[in-house]
Structure formats: C-alpha cells, structure tokens
C-alpha cells in the first residue's frame, strides 16, 4: 500500500489541504515478540503415542522466539471532526492499531504523527479496583492531563453522566461490568480530548446509556476532535461513525464511508458463505479464519 505513489495524486492532496489532519499514519508495522510454543492446539490432540514426541516438540518450541505481525504496513490520514470506526474480525489488529495511535505501543516500522493528546480508555483499562469510584475519577482524569482543580470542577458531571450515583463512594471492584465501563467512558470523555479512542466501551452499556454516549461522541466530534471507535457491533459503527477502516490480518483492507465499508465487511461474514461452513450458527464468531478475500 505504501508503494510509492506518483507525486501527482492530485485528488488526495487537494482534499487534504482543505481539512486539518489530526492523525497521520504512514507505513506502520507493529510486531509483537512472543516466546513459547508455536502450536498450542497440539497438546489437545495428543494421544499417548505422540505424547513423548510432543514433549520434545514443546521443549523445542519453548526456546523459539516467534514474531507476530499484528499490524502490517497501515497508512491513513484522519481529520478533525471525523469519527472513524475500525472493524474487522478478532485478532485482525484493530486494538493494536488503536494502541499504536494512542502512543502506548511503539510501531516497529513507519511513523505516526498526531495533533494533541490522545486519550484511550477501553473496557479493559484497569483503574484501581480496590479504590472508590471517586478516587478513580481523580486518577483517571489527571492521567488524561486534567489538573486536580479541573477534575474537581467536572466531578459532578462525570458521576451524573456515568449514572452510577451513590456507588461512586464504593470500591470499583463492587461495580458491575456495565457500571465500570460507564464510569470509564465518563472519565475518558470528561477531558474533551483532541483524539478520543474507544475500545469496545459502548458494547457494555444499556440502551439508555448507549444513547447518551452516542450524543457525547457527537458532541466531541463537534469540538473538532477525532473519534476512533473499535467495535464488533456493525450497528454501532454505522450509527456513530462517518468513516470506517476495515482491518484483516493486520492489513488495512478498506477505508471509506462507514456505510460502504461496513456493508462490504458484512458481505464476507460467515452467514453469507453457506457452502463453506453450513453448521456454524450465523451469530457465533467463527473459530476458523474464513478464506481471506483476494486482492483486486
């Protein structure tokens, strides 16, 4: 993709000069180094005969360092006021790409430029679970760059938006996963970040919260920020995003208006391929990797 384009890609550069870019990703690779067995499934299939061989194989595999290319040669430009959904199957590198843009994982190759401070809070973001929601609001808010006084000023807003009420004075480990996710979302959006990244956070709330969070995302976009949203819910991406990136095995496969990209992605989902796997229920995520769409 980063094949040297002739300098005169007029349409792209003309469009770029009109809008202000907030994130530029150029030829980014992210490689993880993993230590350990190459085939974890081998131990399940082993019968007595192959056990001995298996021991040897595992012993050998333990010593090997494997590299996993989570993101391969991804390039795109995001602009202020855009809301970008990142879609793709499990393990396609969506979250890794998001973390790289957030500055949490350094890319192995390529370069990322950003304007302002990115704020990423996913459902897995671990705040301090033994402490009250109140303390976590201070820790999270200040980590996102707010001052103590600013957090204090927005405290009531955060609690109200999260809808957790009196529970804010209880330790976070007593929260339901929905309550915790709502509080995290409220904290991460309180800072009115330049670049807001949401990793699946919206999947956990109830209908009412989804509505309010959609409104909040729209509000942040209007403040000329850029919103990135990683989601498995195609409906969420359609509702909240005007643009979508489709990741497949670490490669950026499509980049365009959310409606079109989501439709193209849905066309490749298992239910559309009855001859391949007739027994797989359409809703369950397919454990096998479906045949990779061929490049044009």
């Amino acid at each position, binding site marked *: *993709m*980063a*094949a*040297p*384009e002739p*300098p005169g*890609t007029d349409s*792209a*550069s003309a469009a*770029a000069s009109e809008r202000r*870019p*907030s*994130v*530029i990703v*150029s*030829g980014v690779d992210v490689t993880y*180094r993993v230590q350990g067995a190459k085939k974890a499934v081998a131990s399940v299939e082993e019968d007595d005969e192959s056990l001995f061989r298996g021991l040897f194989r595992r012993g050998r595999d333990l010593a090997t360092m494997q590299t996993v290319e989570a993101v391969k040669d991804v390039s795109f*430009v995001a602009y202020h006021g855009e809301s970008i959904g990142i879609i793709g199957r499990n393990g396609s590198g969506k979250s890794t790409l998001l973390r790289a843009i*957030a500055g*949490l*994982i*350094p*890319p192995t190759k*390529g*370069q*990322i*430029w*950003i*304007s302002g*401070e*990115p704020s*990423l*809070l*996913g459902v897995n*973001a*671990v*705040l301090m679970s*033994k*402490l009250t929601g109140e*303390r976590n609001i*201070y*820790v999270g808010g*200040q*980590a*996102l760059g707010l001052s*103590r006084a600013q957090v204090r000023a927005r405290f009531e807003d955060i609690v109200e938006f999260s809808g957790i009420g009196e529970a804010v004075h209880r330790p976070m480990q007593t929260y339901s996963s929905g309550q915790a996710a709502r509080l995290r979302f409220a904290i991460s959006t309180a800072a009115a970040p330049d670049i807001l990244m949401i990793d699946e956070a919206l999947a956990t709330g109830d209908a009412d919260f989804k509505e309010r969070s959609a409104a909040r995302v729209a509000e942040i976009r209007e403040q000329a920020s850029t919103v990135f949203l990683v989601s498995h819910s195609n409906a969420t991406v359609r509702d909240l995003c005007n643009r979508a990136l*489709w990741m497949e095995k670490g*490669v*950026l496969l*499509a*980049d*365009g208006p959310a409606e*079109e*990209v989501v439709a*193209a*992605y849905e*066309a490749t989902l298992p239910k559309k391929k009855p001859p391949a796997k007739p027994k797989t229920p359409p809703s369950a995520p397919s454990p096998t990797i479906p045949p990779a*769409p*061929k490049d*044009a």
Partner: protein
Amino acid sequence: MTSAPGGTPLPPALSAEQAAALAKAHGLEALGGRPPFGTYVRTLWRRRSFLWTLASADAAEKNSEDRLGVIWTLLNPLLLVVSYFLIFGLLLDTKRGVQNFIGFLSIGVVVFGFSSAAITKGTKAIVGNLGLVRALRFPRALLPLSVTLSEAIRTLPAMAVLIVLMLVTHEPVGLKWLLLPVAFALQIAMMAGLVLMGARLLNISRDIGNLIPVAIRLLRYLSGVFFSIDHYARHHETVRDVLNLQPFALPITLVRQSLMTEFPIVWPFWAAAGLWAVGLLIAGLWLFWRDEAKYGRA
C-alpha cells in the same frame, strides 16, 4: 491492493515523504520513542499533583486490604521492635556499644522498614500496574515515584511512634530533632533513585524480582539495624566505612544522630547522604527514562 472485495476503494496512501510534509504543514507531532531527558524531567515536575494523587491512592489501596488499616502501620514496627529486642537484645546480646538499645533498635527497624518497603513494592510499580500503563499515556517514572512516596506516607505513623519511644526512653528533646525530616527526605530521594533503577530492571526481566527479598534480607543484616557498626567493625576501618556509608545504613545513622544524645551530629555523614540522594535520584531518573518507550509493551 487498492480495493476490498465489496468494491470499496482504498484511498491512495501517501508516501513517507508526503506524510512527513503533511504533518509538518499542520504542525503535527511525531509519536513514539521518548522525549529528551530535560523535557521528561520538566514534564514530571509539571505533573507533580498527579504524582500526589497516585501516591495517596496507592496508600489508600494498601490500607484498604486490612480491616485494621492504618493501625497496622503502627502495630507492625512495634511488634518488630519487640521481637528484635527479644532476639538481639536479650538472647544474642548485640547491644554492646549502645546505651539506649530500645531507642537504637526502634530507629533501625522503622527507618530500614521504609527502605525495605519502598524497594520491594516500588520495583514492581511498572510490572504490577500494566493495565494502567497500557491504558493511559503519562511519564512512566510517575509510577515508581508514586509508590515510593506512598510508602513514605505510610511510614509517617511509625515515625510518630519513634518520637514517643524516644520520650519514653528519656531522650531529651533538642533542636537537633528538627533534622529528622531532613534525614527522611534524603532517604526518600535515595530510595526513589534505587526504585527507578529496579523498576526498569524488573521490566527487562521479572526473574530479578525473586532476588529482591534476598537482597533486602542481606542489607538488613549489613546496615546496623540491631547492632552498632562502629562497635562491631571497630578493628576493620575499611569494612566499617563501607558499611556505614552505603545508602541503607546512612539514613538509620542520620536519624539516630537527630534523635539520640549518644550520637552527636557528624556532618560528613550528612554530606555523604546528600551526595547519594542527588546522585541516585539523577542516575535513577536517567536510567529509567532510557526505556521509557518499552514499559508495558511485552
């Protein structure tokens, strides 16, 4: 590779040069790596209120684990003093060369207790908080520093116990007691430097974590917690000086000099502690900063 199966076009990617030019034209900032050392230290200073929030949150989290909470920070050193007094004061009789052995021992236990807690917990500040590290971007040195600070806060009740014990053992209140906070501040700086180095080491290899309790145990025996280095090493000047001037024994000596009449103030010790404090803190920050981009990656 320019289009997906559905026919959605992939816009032409900018070349590396075009991307760099676009970034420059709009004033975007390159991500990744680490900021220059000076900038890093200035950022740490600017975010000191966050450091305080993290430290007090950390202290509250630890206290919340026990039902008696803060009371343990008082009871623990007292119980330690009692058991050490039974073993070393009565059974092994290591109190030679010391008049007020209870005062001497309790200072050793409390002051070394802070060193031990700071090193043990502070070195785990990165590997034990990976969730936080992976979720939020902030100068990573804030984590080990905040744990050191939180252990210092948790030592304060024990410091109050020390003062009471001094009064009980008839140490006269004097102006030199005002040096106690200075001694403690120097110790905090020394430990912060060591904790920063240890946190980086542990991030490189967690196996090192298994050696820390052993090292702490060894240092406890080498730092004159329950015996007088001056008395027991009086025939070996080099050994005595090395033991006296290492960063785990120095704070104990300084506090004894501040609070006890039998230990007059010896300024060269204070100068040595000052050098250690500045040197270790700068070295620790620098060594920690070198890996700034690598924390939370593995």
